[in-house]
């Protein structure tokens, strides 16, 4: 029986000066690298395939399979790009990972680049996290100095250069083709696919783009074996992942566990909802994943379980809201976010998110009519599946799911002539109040 929590990536975080090469090596760091160099590139890809690792950036695509799409007969250089843009509201795992254990990412980058035969890799980090960027820059510099990067790494004959690249503030640059645009020095607007990045990505060359946590999981798979990784998790969602609890829980934070753990189990560990209050709604994987409620406490948090409940596992960003929170206020704020971050390339999202905000804002003030709820759902219909990229689709998730579960609360705004909730009761410092 696997333990309830399985620290692997987080295991370094309580080590003294955990971000340094010395600390990482004292825990066996950079040993997986030699093991990988002793394997053929295709065997490394096979190991990652066999492990069952699926992308940790939200979509859950099998990582090893993505790597195998790189056409090795293509004479152009191959590139690895790490997506460290972490900007999906609620998502807060890659940032502490890079702050506390940047070397596991660097080691993962080296092994992954070796496997796909890339000699140049990029780590694209959102710009708004200065200290995290310092830590990754320093880890790369230390890895060069120690001969883990550069020419003829560990005498293997393999060369790799890594560039740490800071973004400049744009949620859309987390979308992988928009990220490539940003990395090519352009406005971050998604590209038409096909061609897919595996065939024509960065500089129109074969490119693998993976999330930080996906790449950071690779050294443990190589070191301990695919079977070790696959022994954790559920049938189709293998391995461990970082679950991020935020909001109205007694102990918010990062909990690394096998996929398939439930919110009930996580809340037990985190001391439950703060102040003995009731869970009202939550996101399983960021604001782009449809809301769930207290009826979903026991669904397995894996790709299949959350999908069957009508949502998505996404980035395991569990934002927890108790019964003091107005769902309409929450949804309006997310919708304003999508409107602000819409890159403007396609009409359904650019215009649609603007209309969504108009309609929602009116409802929130208690101004519209019940028919506005149908208008909202119609507007969602015009965006979902018709937008150029998944940002538009994601914008509709909080709206349609909140109307599904909390229709009455929207109506209460109309009868009440405004928001019936007191925002002051939801704050972190209101936690001490006596519950009515």
């Amino acid at each position: 029986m696997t333990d309830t929590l399985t620290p692997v990536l987080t295991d370094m975080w309580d080590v003294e000066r955990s971000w340094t090469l010395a600390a990482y090596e004292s825990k066996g760091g950079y040993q997986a690298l030699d093991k990988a160099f002793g394997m053929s590139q295709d065997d490394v890809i096979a190991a990652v395939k066999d492990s069952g690792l699926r992308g940790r950036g939200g979509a859950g695509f099998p990582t090893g399979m993505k790597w195998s799409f790189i056409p090795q007969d293509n004479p152009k250089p191959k590139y690895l790009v790490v997506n460290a843009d972490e900007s999906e509201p609620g998502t807060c795992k890659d940032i502490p990972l890079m702050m506390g254990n940047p070397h596991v990412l660097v080691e993962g980058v080296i092994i992954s680049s070796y496997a796909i035969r890339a000699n140049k890799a990029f780590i694209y980090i959102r710009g708004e996290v200065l200290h995290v960027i310092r830590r990754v820059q320093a880890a790369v510099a230390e890895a060069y100095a120690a001969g883990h990067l550069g020419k003829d790494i560990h005498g293997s004959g393999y060369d790799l250069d890594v560039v740490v690249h800071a973004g400049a503030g744009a949620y859309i640059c987390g979308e992988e083709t928009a990220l490539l645009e940003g990395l090519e020095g352009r406005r971050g607007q998604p590209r038409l696919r096909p061609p897919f990045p595996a065939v024509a990505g960065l500089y129109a060359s074969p490119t693998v783009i993976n999330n930080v946590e996906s790449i950071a999981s690779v050294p443990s798979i190589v070191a301990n074996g695919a079977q070790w990784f696959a022994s954790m998790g559920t049938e189709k969602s293998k391995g461990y992942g970082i679950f991020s609890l935020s909001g109205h829980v007694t102990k918010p934070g990062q909990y690394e566990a096998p996929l398939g753990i439930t919110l009930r189990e996580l809340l037990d560990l985190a001391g439950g909802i703060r102040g003995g209050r009731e869970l009202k709604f939550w996101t399983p994987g960021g604001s782009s994943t449809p809301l769930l409620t207290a009826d979903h406490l026991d669904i397995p948090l894996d790709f299949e379980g959350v999908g069957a409940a009508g949502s998505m596992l996404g980035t395991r960003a569990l934002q927890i809201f108790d019964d003091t929170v107005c769902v309409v206020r929450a949804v309006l704020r997310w919708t304003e976010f999508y409107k602000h971050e819409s890159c403007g390339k396609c009409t359904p999202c650019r215009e649609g998110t603007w209309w969504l905000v108009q309609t929602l804002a009116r409802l929130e003030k208690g101004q519209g009519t019940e028919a506005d709820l149908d208008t909202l759902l119609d507007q969602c219909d015009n965006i979902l599946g018709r937008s150029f990229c998944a940002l538009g689709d994601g914008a509709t998730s909080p709206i349609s799911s909140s109307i599904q579960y909390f229709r009455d609360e929207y109506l209460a705004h109309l009868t009440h002539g405004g928001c019936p909730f007191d925002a002051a009761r939801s704050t972190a410092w209101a936690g001490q109040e006596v519950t009515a």
Partner: protein
Amino acid sequence: MSALDDKTMGELREIAGRYPEKRSGLLPMLHLVQSAQGKVTPEAIEACAEILEISAAEVSGVATFYTMYKRHGVGDFHVGVCTNTLCAVMGGDQIFERLKQHLEIGNDEVADKRQGDQYSVSLEHVECNAACDYAPVVMVNWEFMDNQTPEGAVQMVESLRAGHDVRSTRGPKLCTWREAERVLAGFPDGRVDEGPSAGPASLAGLEIARERGWTAPHVPAPGAIAPTPSKESAVAEADTSRAESETIDESSSADESAAEKREAQ
């Protein structure tokens, strides 16, 4: 504003040289010009365009797309209050209101430097900064100020204006906005070893695991190797349209959603 000095021009070229195609340097280059000049000036746009051999209009188009690039200056300390839903609900809205009131400015404005102030501050509300487990969060020059309150935030901006040292709750002593921009351009400032490995919330799960002796499995478990999934089953399993669009065979133009996405253009 005068033209960029030789040192900055050299560093801009150095940034462009890090990449197989020099235009890739544009984002960090714009960070560097902000460090040198306090904002993105017309002169800096010209300089970047010249180095990258693209038009000034192209550089300008990029500079206006990304929110971290500023056409008008910001304070020595740029305060960003997260007002995305989770932080807003946890008190970010109240913090932002309190700071606007206290500084007597609106969103994206610089507060006047009063007599005796060492430094200026500016205020902006920001989107989720990937620190939700520390809500409500304030960023100062892109360093984390975790678990803030309205009163605490007011005291913090006053300390900054007075020139006192202020530390990030999960990072080093705060440097100025222009110093920060230089690091983002890829020129480290030697502060990497300040601050902790992780804040308390980051360690919440790990501490429980330590107490209870929970670990990842020690030895490779004997169980069967997961069968290598087929491309079809991968598409079926992946649970979002993102994943689907990633896996659609480049030759299959029959895919509906891809066709729709093209139409939508």
